[in-house]
């Protein structure tokens, strides 16, 4: 009996060896959290005034020997500083390291030579790609590493910048937030800002578009005089960068696709030209529908918006918002403005860039007229710019705000 007890105790002791911790554990203090990723061309960021020899020194520390001696990209990572108890008042919460090379994954691993802790990508908030890179290679090639790695999240925001991505990563927000979080949050309120394309522009959706061979729109971010701003949109045909569309075109597109949730529509006061009236959207029913008649394809977009008078700069005595006649006049003015905005977006995307943005029209045709889609899908790129769009807009002002 005693022997059995001793034997049992020994077994329990042996089993406890397996309870010492997780095989796959990674201690928090042993990780460096990557918050933002910037991708530039390898020669980007050469600062004016820096001697070429000094520049070369920097490159040597930031790069590694490759047999074919080619460096295509500069990869910059924004890492979160870990606060220690004696160092609470830090100027910035992040720091940036970078490297040059051909393979993004190889550069990441080589950066372990610049950082004492392992790089942890589970909290990446944003990836910023410079326009210069996208002029050389397709978006698919740049994003492959990120869509393959299991640490990446689907909701990572992706921006395009006409300047250097690294300088945006080095930017310290005035609010003292961590830079990557600040940059990612800029797009979160896109439903309340007509000028920012934000719907379906994160890594998960971009992978979906790439797999579907769809066209892509990404927000443009730039820094001018230490001011960071989102606006305009980078337009891709499949994964090839074709240019930027301006903010007014973005607004028109968002209205057309019904991705606006709380937009502002600004127009001239009908009674006082030069003064502005603003419509604040609360709810809308926007339906984009394909039609096929006798083999001819056309689309209709029916926009119905309900909202509020948000601002009125005219003469309050003459512009009486309590007067239904005046409200009808305003509704007509806003409807006209929306129509103008949508037609402008049509002109930019369809006529000038000749891109079916996010392949929305193609999706609609495929979903609702599959037989026609089968016939035209191979010539869609050529056919799309010639397809008419019939616009109908109805505005209903439901409230005038807290003052007449």
């Amino acid at each position, binding site marked *: 009996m005693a022997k059995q007890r001793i034997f049992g105790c020994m077994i329990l002791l042996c089993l406890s060896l397996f309870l010492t911790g997780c*095989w796959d554990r990674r201690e928090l203090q042993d990780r460096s959290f990557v918050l933002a990723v910037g991708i530039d061309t390898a020669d980007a960021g050469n600062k004016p005034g820096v001697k070429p020899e000094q520049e070369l020194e920097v490159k040597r520390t930031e790069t590694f020997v490759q047999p074919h001696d080619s460096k295509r990209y500069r990869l910059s990572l924004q890492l979160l500083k870990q606060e220690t108890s004696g160092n609470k008042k830090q100027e910035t919460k992040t720091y940036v390291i970078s490297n040059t090379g051909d393979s993004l994954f190889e550069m990441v691993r080589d950066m372990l030579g610049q950082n004492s802790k392992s790089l942890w990508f589970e909290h990446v908030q944003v990836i910023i790609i410079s326009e210069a890179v996208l002029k050389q290679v397709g978006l698919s090639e740049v994003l492959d590493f990120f869509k393959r790695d*299991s640490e990446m*999240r*689907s909701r990572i925001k992706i921006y395009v910048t006409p300047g250097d991505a690294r300088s945006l990563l080095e930017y310290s927000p005035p609010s003292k937030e961590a830079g990557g979080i600040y940059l990612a949050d800029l797009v979160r309120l896109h439903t309340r800002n007509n000028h920012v394309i934000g719907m379906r522009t994160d890594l998960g959706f971009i*992978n*979906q578009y790439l*797999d579907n*061979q769809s066209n892509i729109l990404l927000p443009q971010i730039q820094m001018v005089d230490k001011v960071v701003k989102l606006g305009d949109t980078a337009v891709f045909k499949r994964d090839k960068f074709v240019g930027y569309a301006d903010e007014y075109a973005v607004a028109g597109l968002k209205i057309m696709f019904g991705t606006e949730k709380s937009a502002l529509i600004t127009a001239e006061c009908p009674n006082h030209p030069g003064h502005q009236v603003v419509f604040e959207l609360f709810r809308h029913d926007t339906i984009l529908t394909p039609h096929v008649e006798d083999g001819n394809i056309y689309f209709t977009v029916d926009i119905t918006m309900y909202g509020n008078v948000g601002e009125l700069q005219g003469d309050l005595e003459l512009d009486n918002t309590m007067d239904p006649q005046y409200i009808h006049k305003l509704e007509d003015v806003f409807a006209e403005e929306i129509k103008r905005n949508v037609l402008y977006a049509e002109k930019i995307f369809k006529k000038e860039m000749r891109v079916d943005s996010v392949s929305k029209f193609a999706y609609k045709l*495929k979903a609702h007229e599959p037989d026609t889609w089968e016939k035209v899908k191979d010539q869609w790129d050529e056919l799309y710019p010639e397809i008419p769009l019939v616009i109908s807009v109805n505005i209903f002002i439901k409230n005038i705000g807290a003052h007449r």
Partner: protein
Amino acid sequence: MANLEVKTHMSALQLAIVVFVTCAGAQIMLSLRSLIAEAGQEAWISVLFGGVIFYVAVYLMLKLGKNYPDETIVEYAPRIFGRVGGSIVIFWFNLLFFLQIIAIFYGVGKVITFYMFDRTPPEVVILALLVVCTYCALQDFGTILRLQQIMFFVAYSMLMVIWMTSILNLQPENLLPLWPIHIKEVVTGGFSTWSLYGGYECVLLLLPLVYRQVSFANLAKVVGGAFGCLTLVFVLFIVIIIGVLTVDNAKSVPYPVLLVIRSVELPGTFIERLENYLLLAWIPVVFDTLAAQMFFMGQVCMRQWHYLDHRPWVLLLVPMIYVGSIMIDNQQVYDAVSNFTMWAGLIFSFVVVPLSLILSWRQKREAGTGCG
């Protein structure tokens, strides 16, 4: 010490739960990509079609079992096909469980290693799960049945609650067009759903526990209900995957279920990376599917070689299962094994079982004529 809670009978509802739990297991994570690649936009119709045809297969099995209410297939197969033929049928029957088990172990090892424990070799994950499943399979059927009933209410409800959060990202337009239906793809896809529905063959072992308790009509109705639930679960998975990812995206990723759940952001909460929660709910589901199938394999061997206890057979099968799952060392081998298992399962269900039924009717008629 194993719990020898011998079960001599169970209700029709309990059989339905066993069928549901044995079928709806690991494959919801592992098989859906290939189904979507095959059936495309109409994959959900294939699942509905699969539900109908595999219910027909189960119905035939119930009919066959009714002719031998106190015996399992292991006992009556030699009487129908002769000693050699019967042994081949029993071997085939057991091979189906074996192939499903090793494919599931391989898949689980790969998924868990990739998404949760990236430093752990898949062999270790497989071994750990195998140990737990073996312990469960060493119990008698009473314990396994109780476990399956608990899992049916606990693990599956957890799994479904977590999965349904992905409805937040559903884009109904991704499911269009619903028409025209490509009949050939739908039918081919329907038969491919065997990998989802596979496991229902267990009724051929369990019917003696039920037949003395309930009528055939009641049994057919209740098992039909189990198939209805299975079909609903699979359709929900397929519809949400296509609705969130689109067909082209879903067929480009190895585990579309995990990609779908990964992209969920619950507004106003700090809960992130829902794929880990889904995997945590999936592991018990996999466990009880595997444990039940290992138990069934042990039972077949025990009855075939006239043993009184299934436990030595379960222990004997363990190294074979481990080696089998380790030998599937890449996706191509896995696809080949899955394909072979599907064809073996389809032939068993739609050739061997109907043939057994015809032969058994003929033998009974001849016996009746002889007596008369």
